[in-house]
């Protein structure tokens, strides 16, 4: 098994603007590099990052890569394919009479008062959707056998029309896969070169639309991902890489490239998935278990909840308006970030966002042609950002232009001073982010005041203290790698695969033997996959859960259980307790129905245990670098400014103060104390 003792580990997260790279060497020392993302061929940006690492260590790329044992790669190539409607040309085969379930999207139009927009571009147009006579009923009985000649006819049409990929999803196939299997056999014979995605392999669970959509997404993106990974693997190999390449998934785990090529849909929401993993790691080593992670970048703000070291999952994900029901980390996103644009409406009311200046042209102060004032411009005017200190001083910000923009577009129309306008922009965006956290915490049934706020993203540490104050959160944790948080998280991720089988019925009447058979089947699949990925059986951890609901209810609650010999009466108790916690009531003793039986298989990868640990020497006196004028609550104060690299573990800084890190800035308001913990992470107490 790959491990840090034998060589270096690298995490590479390809984002919209930057490709973030984190290297941890065999001694646990970490180095961070950012390169520009190269959208036409993202592997170029990846190689650029690796070359930078090589150059920094004075090695050739071949020598450098020969010492790397593992590269974990996060890519948004599948997400972008969906958002830009540039996936593989895909056909869809489904049950006769039900041609449009995929296109109907359950009849929802998301913006009810807006009549001027079109539905999302279909993954599969209606003309590439063919139906085949076949039917399984809601108890799994075959009531119409599959019409093989009709199926062949449909396959030939799809072949003639030049599709590259085919999704197959029949009604109730998760209860009886026979027709999907027959179809797969026909496809293999008639059209062996097609990429085939079966719903019974991708997501064998209830709800036709969600299953169809997840299967179609898988067919739509997997060929794209497979081509990219082939290309990247070839480049890495020819550059001398002999270690293991792993791909980040949306469930917070990693998988081998071969699995990723089959199940591309599992990477669709993987962009922010490293964040909670890194949050758990940093939280746990600082002895915090209940966390809220926030990641504030240029255009979006991501939130996730971690209770007792566990992230919540959701099966209600969506990508570009298409349902994605594969379990993913429950990360909520709102459109608020450093680039969010401030504007005044015709009634004289101030707004921030949802429009963003993005990276191009960016905020006014970037001097790249932006003319609309943004949150970053306000941060500069308030002194939170230093014009000379941004990105380690490599990029000078234009203070005067930012000030002028806020004056003309915000302060004058509102009839207030520039500083007040800038502060207003900050307060407004902070309250929007606090509202997003409140909404998630209500959904989870938790009180945010009991949690530690883990802060990430380039703009996160500038705003975090103010957000925490609004939520009455007392403690913040700001990892040193905050700006490349997701890439760091990837290095901490285990191999992880989720499986589901459906066996529905009242819990009291289900045969324990049938449930055990389902799990034997899933376990065999899990162990085979993990062993292909280089895992020994002893390093595999299996965990079990089942979706339960009261009979007649429409929403299930996922209840974990410890072992296959678990008594169903115990499950009933856990369900009732969880139902009460989430929804405020339960119906003691009423019948409970089981639906989806889930297995999660984790193959532990070795963690860089000393990752980030700093030499623990006490530091009584922290050298103050300089100071600048900063505005807090309408008051101008002089804040000390420190360089992050000067702060060793156990250093303490009293607010008002600013700590400059190469890729982020930590704002310490008056009366707050910043402390560096043993691992080099900042802890801020309000």
């Amino acid at each position, binding site marked *: 098994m790959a491990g840090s003792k034998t060589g270096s580990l690298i995490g590479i997260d390809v984002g919209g603007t930057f490709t973030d790279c984190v290297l941890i060497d065999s001694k646990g020392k970490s180095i961070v590099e950012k390169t520009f993302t190269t959208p036409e061929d993202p592997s170029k940006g990846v190689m650029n990052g690796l070359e930078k690492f090589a150059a920094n260590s004075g090695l050739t790329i071949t020598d450098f890569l020969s010492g790397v044992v593992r590269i974990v790669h996060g890519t948004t190539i599948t997400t972008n394919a969906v958002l830009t409607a540039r996936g593989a040309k895909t056909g869809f085969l489904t049950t006769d*009479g*039900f*041609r*449009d*379930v995929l*296109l*109907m999207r*359950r*009849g*929802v*139009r*998301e913006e*009810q*008062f807006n*009549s*001027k*927009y*079109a*539905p999302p571009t279909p993954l599969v147009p*209606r*003309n590439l959707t063919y139906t085949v006579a076949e039917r399984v*009923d*809601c108890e799994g009985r075959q009531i119409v056998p599959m019409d093989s000649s009709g199926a062949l006819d449909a396959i030939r049409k799809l072949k003639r029309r030049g599709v590259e990929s085919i999704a197959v999803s029949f*009604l*109730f196939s998760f209860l009886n896969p026979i027709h999907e299997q027959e179809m797969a056999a026909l496809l293999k014979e008639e059209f062996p070169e097609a990429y085939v995605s079966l719903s019974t392999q991708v997501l064998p669970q*209830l*709800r*036709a*639309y969600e299953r169809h959509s997840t299967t179609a997404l898988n067919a739509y993106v997997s060929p794209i991902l497979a081509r990219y990974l082939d290309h990247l693997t070839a480049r890495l190999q020819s550059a001398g890489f002999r270690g293991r390449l792993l791909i980040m998934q949306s469930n917070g785990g990693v998988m081998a490239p071969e699995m990723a090529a089959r199940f591309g849909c599992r990477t669709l929401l993987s962009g922010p998935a490293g964040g909670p993993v890194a949050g758990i790691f940093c939280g746990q080593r600082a002895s915090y278990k209940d966390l809220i992670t926030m990641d504030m970048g240029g255009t979006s703000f991501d939130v996730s909840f971690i209770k007792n070291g566990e992230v919540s999952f959701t099966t209600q994900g969506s990508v570009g308006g298409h349902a994605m029901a594969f379990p993913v980390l429950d990360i909520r996103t709102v459109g608020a970030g450093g680039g969010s644009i401030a504007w005044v*409406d*015709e*009634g*004289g*009311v*101030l*707004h921030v966002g949802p429009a963003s200046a993005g990276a191009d042209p960016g905020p006014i102060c970037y001097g790249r042609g932006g003319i609309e004032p943004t949150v970053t411009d306000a941060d500069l005017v308030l002194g939170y950002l230093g014009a000379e200190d941004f990105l380690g001083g490599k990029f000078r910000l234009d203070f005067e232009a930012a000030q002028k923009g806020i004056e003309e577009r915000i302060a004058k*129309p*509102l*009839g*207030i001073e520039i500083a*007040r306008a800038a*502060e*207003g922009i900050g307060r*407004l965006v902070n*309250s*929007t982010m606090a*509202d997003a956290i*409140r*909404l998630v915490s*209500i*959904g989870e049934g938790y009180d945010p005041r009991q949690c530690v706020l883990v802060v990430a993203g380039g703009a996160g540490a500038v705003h975090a203290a103010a957000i925490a104050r609004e939520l009455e959160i007392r403690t913040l944790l700001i990892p040193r790698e905050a700006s490349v948080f997701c890439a760091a998280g990837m290095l901490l991720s285990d191999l992880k695969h989720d499986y589901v089988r459906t066996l*529905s019925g009242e819990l009291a009447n289900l045969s324990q033997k049938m449930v055990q058979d389902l799990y034997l089947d899933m376990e065999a699949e899990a162990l085979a996959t993990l062993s292909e990925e280089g895992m020994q059986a002893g390093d595999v951890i299996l965990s079990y859960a089942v979706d339960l609901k009261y*009979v*007649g209810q*429409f*929403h299930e609650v996922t209840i974990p259980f410890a072992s296959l010999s678990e008594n169903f009466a115990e499950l009933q108790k856990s369900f009732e307790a969880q139902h009460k916690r989430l*929804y*405020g*009531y339960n*119906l003691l003793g009423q019948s409970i129905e089981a639906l989806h039986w889930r297995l999660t298989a984790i193959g532990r990868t070795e963690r860089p245990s000393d990752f980030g640990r700093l030499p623990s020497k006490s530091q009584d006196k922290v050298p103050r670098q300089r100071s600048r004028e900063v505005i807090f609550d309408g008051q101008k104060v002089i804040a000390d400014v420190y360089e992050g690299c000067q702060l060793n573990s156990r250093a303490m800084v009293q607010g008002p103060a600013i700590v400059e890190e190469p890729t982020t800035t930590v704002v310490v308001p008056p009366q707050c104390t910043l402390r560096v913990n043993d691992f080099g992470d900042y802890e801020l107490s309000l």
Partner: protein
Amino acid sequence: MSPIHDPISVAVISNRLTAITKEMGQIMLLTSRSPIFSESRDFVTAIFDAQGQLVAQTSYIPVLLGAVPFALKAIMNRFNMEDLHRGDVVIANDPYQGNSHLPDVTIARPVFYERRLTFWAVTKGHQADLGGSGVAGYNPLAKSVWEEGLRLPPVKVYANGEYQQDIWDLILLNVKSRDLVEGDLHCQIGATARGEEALIELLDRHGQVTAEEAIQSYLEATEKKMAAAINAIPDGYYSGERGLDNDGIEMDRQPTIRVDLTINGEKLTFDFSRSDPQTRGFVNSPFANTASVCFQSLFACIGATIPINAGSLRLISIVAPEGSIVHCRQPAPTTASTLLTCAAITDAIWIALSQAIPAQSQSGWGRRCAPMTAGFNPRTRRPFVCTHHNCKGGSGATEGFDGWSHTGPVSNMGGSRATDPEIFELAYPYTLLQYEFAPDTGGAGKWRGGMGAIIRWRVETSDVQCVTVGSGMLEATRAFGLLGAKPGSLPTMQVISADGTKRELRVNAFHTIHEGDTFEIVSQGGGGFGEPLERDPEQILRDVVDGVVSAKRAFAEYGVVIVGPEDDSTINVEATRSERARRNSAKTKTVTLVK
């Protein structure tokens, strides 16, 4: 423009108030026991100030957006200030005291701050059952509101925080699904408790004076935005007229809504004086419902970005004479007002608006035309109630955009989810045989109406009660097209017995259903927008290749000649050009003759 005194507080506080209504909604979505809240999202959450002005709201389905102010006003009229205390929770559903129809129950909680009534936290939502003798609450034979279910005047279900056992006993004894209703009422009450908690936090944080000033400034600023939007509509007098197929009792008379819309600067008046008198059957609209539909129809055309609060609503006047179908007098029955009459009022208003602002108006949406069924499911050994929300019609087209398929009814504007086909079979004693778009149902136009759907299911038990609730089956009620476009298709609704005999089902009537019967419904497409001959032939080719418009229809409606098999068709460019030229010149001639 006179600047606002404290613009930052105004922005922060108004954002927070809307966020609070969303947090209340989140509680509703999570704690609801029936799928009416969690799946159909048939509820609204709102905050009012001490004077009863609507300050912020989130309407999860549009038709409820404007109904709450009237319900709260009735509640405030009922109780003197000194009769209201912290911990009180008031319930009400009476259509003749500010509500729309009996299933929509208002729950209002007065919020006190420093012993003074400062806010109201309110929710209104559709309860699964409020008694009565219909199916899923719908009874087309009811001739009075008393036959439709339990009427609740404003009464306290909690007083000073004390659970009012007597009132609860009284309510729950009168409903069939006791567990469901008890749970969902608590869900609504829980949402107002979250509202109270969050509002007190807000007042603690900002101070009462700042908060109250900020709210008034915000309402004034919203009024300005609304004034600007109304000002942009050309001054004038516009009118529209649209009807319903029947009222359930007089089956041959079409109740008709007539609206005269006057725009005068920043004042807008909907005058319904010429509308029909109230009817005997269940399609009467109480004033609160009529007002709500006016707001909904208007905001759908001009107000996608304008907040809905007392500031924006105060510029809209509504004239609806008492005793008319849009302002019925007690004891007229009202259950179908939100589902059916809503559509007719919306259509009349959009026809009127299309004369003023054609580019922003919308064509008619496919009307609701489907059964409600209930009975006993032998497979699950449980009773069931099914509202058949999967029989959605297409939405109307608008300038620049085709309508959305299978999205209606217009009262929900796409806000409610259709039941998943697999859940449908698991929950109900039905086998679904077909559920897909119905070709050639969308009205032809430069922008095409959305498609209706064909839905067929076989009944697998003998114990099913069925009532149909719908309209749109007549020329005068179908989804209309605008600016030269065609209307949406006429819907069909029939039952085919096991022996093959077919029965057409009339709308708004009870029907007998047997085991082995197959329902077949083809829902209505949306109306088109603009001249069909102007539709881009490439778009028509795409529709033909997709199988949603037939080649025959492409020629008949659009003058486009398409040749070849469906999935491999091409346009005969030359034949199309000459056919369209021929029709255009024929049309010019007709116009000249008329002149």
